[in-house]
């Protein structure tokens, strides 16, 4: 149970930079998600921390130890893979005991530890079965048991839930969080599933093109995205572009939008991000900001109605509305949208 630090870590394959100068810290006992599209470098960063990839430059610290030159097998990490990676020629108990054996723990003591780990993942008595006899979800639990039974310094998860179906995935999320809290393991979780990242993490790091564009608590990253990419990748966002004028933003159509974000100097161009669920259909000018738009598409998803709209200037907008009274607007309807200045976030491009 230790913290993990990476300092100016960079990695280039051929001429393609995969990671560009990453410096960040994963505090002791925290659950951090590395979130980003494929090619953003999130898996590379995880594999550098694991020791499978050697960075071109920079330092990896686990606790107070510089492990940059320590190979994987000397780092005492617990790792879960997307494919489970259980050893098919061994029983469940042998799988879980593998790491213990490498640490010289054998016999009755190992059996006790294995039983405890299997109990922790709620698979007691499964020790004599083979991986083939288990379902995907069960195999993933065994993989988790195998990773934590060695009491690793850090738990590294490489999209471990992406192969499971939706219901099972949600079940495993709860399980994973429970076990992470119980064990207090510093956990780094790679995912491209934004909902998963928000649900599980103490901290979310959004990666793009080999850089961490934003890292923070899920609420902060979601409510106050720093860049257009962060706003777009984590959740949905509407973007309005205008010119700063006396502490507000004037759009191309002449209307003025207020924001509580710090805005750049008068006259500069700025992009504002507004979450689609923060907008509401209004009849008058009751909200801080309002805009008129025409509905282009209606998506009926049961509890939530999702409208695609277009302003007079052709700016596309999205609106998520709770299906409270069963009224569904139609394509072509002209509506007025209102939202508060607080939910209008200035983002960098």
């Amino acid at each position, binding site marked *: 149970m230790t913290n993990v630090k990476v300092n100016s870590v960079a990695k280039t394959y051929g001429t393609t930079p995969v990671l560009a100068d990453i410096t960040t810290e994963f505090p002791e006992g925290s659950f951090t998600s590395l979130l980003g599209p494929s090619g953003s470098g999130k898996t590379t960063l995880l594999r550098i921390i694991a020791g499978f990839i050697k960075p071109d430059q920079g330092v990896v610290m686990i606790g107070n130890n510089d492990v940059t030159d320590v190979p994987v*097998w000397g780092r005492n990490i617990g790792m879960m893979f997307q494919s489970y990676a259980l050893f098919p020629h061994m029983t469940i108990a042998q799988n879980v005991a593998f790491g213990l054996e490498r640490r010289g723990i054998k016999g009755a003591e190992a059996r006790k530890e294995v039983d405890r780990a299997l109990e922790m993942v709620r698979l007691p008595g499964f020790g004599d079965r083979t991986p083939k006899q288990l379902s995907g979800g069960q195999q993933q639990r065994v993989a988790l048991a195998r990773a934590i039974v060695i009491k690793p310094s850090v738990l590294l998860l490489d999209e471990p839930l992406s192969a499971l179906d939706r219901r099972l995935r949600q079940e495993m999320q709860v399980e994973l969080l429970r076990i992470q809290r119980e064990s207090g393991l510093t956990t780094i979780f790679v995912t491209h599933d934004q909902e998963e990242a928000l649900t599980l993490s103490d901290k979310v790091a959004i990666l793009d093109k080999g850089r961490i564009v934003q890292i923070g608590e899920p609420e902060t990253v979601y409510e106050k995205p720093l860049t257009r990419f962060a706003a777009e990748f984590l959740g949905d966002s509407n973007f309005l572009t205008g010119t700063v004028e006396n502490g507000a933003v004037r759009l191309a159509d002449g209307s003025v939008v207020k924001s509580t974000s710090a805005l750049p100097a008068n006259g500069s161009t700025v992009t504002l991000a507004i979450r689609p669920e923060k907008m509401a259909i209004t009849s008058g000018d009751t909200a801080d900001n309002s805009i008129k738009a025409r509905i282009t598409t209606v998506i009926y998803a049961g509890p939530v109605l999702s409208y695609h709209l277009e302003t007079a200037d052709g700016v596309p907008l999205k609106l998520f509305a709770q299906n409270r009274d069963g009224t569904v607007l139609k394509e072509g309807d002209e509506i007025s949208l209102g939202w508060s200045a607080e939910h209008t976030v200035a983002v960098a491009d």
Partner: protein
Amino acid sequence: MKSLGRFYLIATLVFLYTPILVMMAMGFNESQLYELPFTFSMRWYDALWNNKILLTAGMNSIIIALITSVLATALGTMASVALSRRTFRGKSLLQLMLLPPIAIPWLITGTAMLIFFYWTGIGRGMHALLIGHVALAIPYVVLVVGTGFRTIRADLEEAAMSLGSTPVHAFFSVTLPLLYPSILGAALFAFAVSLDQFVISYFLATPGYTTLPVQIYSSIRKGFTPEINAISTVLLLGSMTVILIFARFAKPGDTSDKR
């Protein structure tokens, strides 16, 4: 449709096995000229027992095949590991160059080896036969073991390493046990390639050291007796037993437990 398929299967088996069964039966026939009616006799087996030349050639064949099998399997498996798990310069070229030897007619390979061995002073005889057979069998081993490798995910070794295994330990504790059926299959393949080999053996054998196929060929030219049938039967039953044991334990084609 189903009965048609079954008929086809049976017809194929009959077509494959009838000549072999006739050959075996004639080894137990009294007549030296393969005449009917069939009269059961063990005389050709008795004669074989006293035919030191054939027996020696048979033993030579088996010894060469065994050594070839062990050497080619070891070397080919190592090559497979490198080709499947590592990246190095010229890898794809090497991989590509492994295939032509399988397609090159043995007559050409044999001639080339004879000339090359003559030039380099390697000469002919048992050692030359071994070198030739091993060289011939390696591509088959690399192919079979390489196919086995593709069914084993690389992240199994990574998982082992994350649990504290060195790469060597990960290979021996995870990859090798999963590869074992492929390696056994490859060894069998190498054994069969060597035991079957006539053309190259014919070039590289010396009058004092021949293998069974070469010896059978020269016997046939001199006018042969059903002793040939007898020794062929012994050899055939021997190799079939090995193959059946392999099929029973290794379940070739079963990759269901190797995700």
